[in-house]
């Protein structure tokens, strides 16, 4: 009996083509007046022995029909969904919603790289005025008024009103005044770098009236020129991301250091690309020396007690060298094509643990 019902309904369910037919079948089988429900009612009239076999059989039948209904229902839903999705085709090769990507200027990026390296060696970052008194820019740095270096620096002067007889201020020609101001404010010992804009009245293929410099200063009781060389070697290796580098110190002269040295790095220009640390060429990249006792004295530091080194390097210049940027003037032209090509992604933050460039 139950077997007949079972095969009848399972067959009908399997053949059902939509949900309404399934509902009809459910009512016909399990509804209040459904075939199986009616049979269940009959159980009360049976003897206990009959009930013991017929009860479980009917219950099992009921469960089985229910499961078949559920399975078929979900199968029909899946088929309907599949059918719908077949019509929901999109051309995914269309462009995505625009999301602008900005860039970081190479000057900022390289300044951060330099900062990361020197921070590791204990150097803080000091800043100062870009319009400077001639005392901070020149006199305190042992460059008196008649010194030929003053004329050679192509200094920009600020306008003085008629009757204002003070010497004109200057646009700082180097970031060295920051060294003086930092020493005045903090005294020795000190380790700082001073990055920033500097100005010289010069404009041609390789000069712009504004460029960027980072100077370093380390003053303590026993800092030597050999320490300077080590610091610069470590800096150049870290900055250019090479394992080895050879620096050449050449005697030179700056009014604010003594002894003074120009620093060259060994390099190769083979094939027009710069390779640091190999080859037979020398590339001049730095000026440096031991801080002149007069400069220390001018900044209020006792030169008999303290000594140390200073150096300066062009940020734009090392950016050009490291990233193969050909023209200095383009740095300040804000040409979108240039900014996008030579700029850096916003999350490329240079760190020593993650690497300077990526």
């Amino acid at each position, binding site marked *: 009996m139950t077997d007949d019902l079972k095969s009848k309904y399972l067959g009908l369910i399997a053949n059902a083509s939509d949900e309404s037919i399934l509902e009809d079948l459910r009512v016909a089988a399990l509804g209040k007046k459904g075939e199986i429900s009616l049979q269940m009612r009959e159980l009360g009239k049976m003897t206990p022995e009959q009930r013991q076999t017929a009860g479980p059989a009917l219950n099992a039948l009921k469960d089985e029909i229910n499961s078949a209904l559920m399975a078929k229902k979900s199968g029909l839903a899946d088929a309907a969904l599949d059918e719908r999705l077949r019509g929901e085709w999109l051309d995914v090769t269309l462009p995505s919603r625009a999301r602008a990507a900005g860039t970081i200027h190479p000057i900022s990026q390289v300044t951060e790289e330099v900062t990361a390296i020197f921070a590791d060696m204990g150097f803080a970052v000091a800043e100062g005025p870009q*319009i400077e008194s001639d005392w901070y820019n020149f006199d305190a740095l042992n460059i008196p008024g008649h010194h030929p270096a003053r004329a050679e620096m192509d200094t920009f002067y600020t306008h003085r009103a008629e009757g204002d007889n003070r010497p004109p201020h200057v646009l700082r020609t180097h970031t060295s005044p920051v060294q003086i101001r930092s020493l005045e404010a903090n005294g020795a010992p000190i380790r700082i770098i001073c990055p920033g804009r500097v100005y010289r009245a010069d404009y041609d293929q390789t000069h712009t009236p504004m460029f960027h410099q980072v100077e370093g200063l380390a003053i303590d009781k026993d800092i030597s020129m050999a320490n300077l060389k080590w610091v610069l070697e470590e800096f150049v290796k870290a900055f250019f991301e090479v394992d080895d580098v050879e620096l050449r110190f050449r005697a030179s002269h700056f009014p604010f250091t003594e002894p003074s040295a120009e620093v060259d790095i060994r390099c190769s220009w083979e094939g027009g690309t710069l390779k640091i640390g190999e080859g037979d060429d020398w590339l001049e990249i730095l000026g440096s020396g031991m801080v002149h006792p007069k400069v220390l004295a001018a900044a209020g530091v006792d030169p008999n007690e303290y000594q140390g080194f200073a150096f300066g390097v062009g940020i734009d210049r090392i950016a050009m060298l490291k990233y193969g940027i050909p023209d200095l003037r383009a740095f300040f032209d804000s040409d979108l094509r240039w900014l*996008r090509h030579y700029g850096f992604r916003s999350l490329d933050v240079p760190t020593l643990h993650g690497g300077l460039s990526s």
Partner: protein
Amino acid sequence: MKFTLSWLKRHLETDASVADICEALTDLGLEVEGVENPAEKLADFTIGYVKHAEKHPDADKLRVCKVDTDEGELQIICGAPNAREGITVVVAKPGVYVPGIDTTIGVGKIRGIESYGMMASEREMELSDEHDGIIELPSGEVGQRFVDWLAQNDPAKVDTMIEIAITPNRPDALGVRGIARDLAARGLGVMKPCDVDPVPAAFTSDLTVSIDDDTLDGCPVFMGRLIKGVKNGPSPEWLQDLLRAIGLRPISFLVDVTNYFTYDQNRPLHVFDADKVAGNLRVHRAVGGETIMALDDKEYTLQAGQMVISDDNGAQSIAGIMGGLDTGVTEDTVNVFVESAFWDTVQIAYAGRALKINSDARYRFERGVDPAFTPDGLEHAVRMIVDHAGGEASEMVVAGQVPDVSRAHKLDAQRVISLVGMEISESQQRQTLTALGFRLEGNMAHVPSWRPDVLGEADLVEEVARIASLTKLVGKPLPRLAGVPKPILTPMQTRQGNARRAAASLGYNECVTYSFIDQEAAALFGGGDDATMLENPISNDMSHMRPGLLPGLLRAVSRNQARGFADVSLFEVGHAFHGGEPGEQHVQVAGVLVGRTGPKDVHGEARAVDVYDAKADAEAVLSVMGAPAKVQVLRGADAWWHPGRHGKICLGPKKVMGVFGELHPKVLREMNIKGPAVAFVLYPEEIPLPRAKSTARAALKSTDLQAVERDFAFVVDANVEALTLVNAAVGADKALISDVRVFDEFIGGSLGDDKKSLAITVRMQPADKTLKDAEIEAVAEKIVAKVTKATGGVLRG
């Protein structure tokens, strides 16, 4: 400073190669900037012998020559008058480059006859200006390289020229002898003596010299000798060769002698034609306005106080800078007065700068010549003149006296080692200084008179270090500070870095624009006054310090629009200048958005940029700089903003952290910007620093109770600001209301032109029990009451 190898060898006994000498010079601080070997450009010229010469059949002035060369007999057509049989000549065969005529020789036909090369004159090989005929050599084998012959017979013609850069502290190296001294100290040779046998005095000069009392500080000593009966004319060959090799044009013997000693010993001299000097010479200060025609054929007007040498007719020489034309020597000069004087560096520097004269004399006197050498330099020159040009010399005429520049500084050998970080023994240090001309007495080093730059112990260190060679310096680690490095950036520096990264993330391209800008643009943004003006700008485009970053950014936008980029978003982080005194600068973070949010796209999302784009970006960048979220937005910013479409983001009316808005249409027109343009300017230094030092956050208060949202629409006057309404709504129950958002604005229509509807969503977050309808209603009534009170608005029906 230029010199030649043979000139160097007049002072230095050395076998060192040019390469070794150059390497040492650069290492010593006398950086080699160029080396020119004339032999290089003559390497392909060979010696030939003219076997036969006859007149060209079709040209009177040409000869057809048969010339023996290393490649056999060649037929060469030659136009030189001296081209004839039996002479030894210099041949440029086909393929050889001839520098003097900038031509590579080829095979050619001259008037129908083939010519297989050229016989050269001195000028064609840039050996001299001689071009009267081809070279006739007194000796030489056919096929021998001409440069080899020159090296044996006329080495001055293939003298290697070396050019070095001179740092301002080394006037002594402006003389070849000073350069030789450095090389000798380095061990590259031995100094030759440079003594002079003074010409005996034959008479007393009737030409005398005086120095005014007020000029003695600028001219402590003036010496001279009168030489009578000289025969001026061209200099001897060797002198002409030397001068020409360093790029000087030989003029006449008397002038060439002064140039020679200028370069040989850094001893500028001057020669007067004594017959043209009226009366005596007087060194004095100009009263101002005197004019003088100088040796460069230009007239100069002297300023009061500048030093000048005058005779009875007036100014005859700009002291220490340039002589005058009137009393200058000529080919005809027979009586010459030779001047050797010492001039103060500072006064020469100022006078030279004021008169804008760049002469060899000024260049040297302003750096410092050797005062003690004043008489010796004179004797050297007089000796050379009399030996070559004859004549008799007077006793020395002297005014003033040679200044005493003697001084001594302590040599502290340990300090040298400590500063340089190189082990240089005390004996080596002393030896170095001695070789450079210092005299050591105990540990006091007496400075030679030719080293005005050595003024203290530190200078001794420099001398020892550079002679020892800084190339040998071995790096020593700078002691690391203990432990993990501490952070080194100040909060302000971190802030700027964060702002930069945030702006780039928002799609802006960072620019670095010049700190100076044209006055017109500066004036549009509150600058352009005299206080921020440059005295000597490089161009009118860069005349004033920028009052803000916007003018530079807008100029950049305009340039990019001209290149075809309509939609531009640029930003910059940098200093602006609100005055002309040191420190009158402040940091700005500025961004501009111009055009549309993007190119037109399939999603139809691109639209013109508007104020709310600028506001969103300003808020985002302020947020990464640590600005508080609760701010006031006020109006009344500067005139370059659209008066009704901008806002100042403030903490109180005086504390402006930033401004956003549309730029004033007039400003955009002036700056030549096309399309809509919005911008923001932020002031990182105005953002307060966080107060709490603790890193711990307050505990998170969260609840499982459901939040309830209710919408309200109010009709208010059109000029009521949304923030007023929002604040009023929040104030209805600060504990319960967690957020109020404006989600719709509708202006005009059925409401009338002066009204608008603002719709808000209020989110209520209960803390301890679920909200009941009655409670929500109560809060809603309070909200309506508060909003009505604050704005005069009514709930929209």
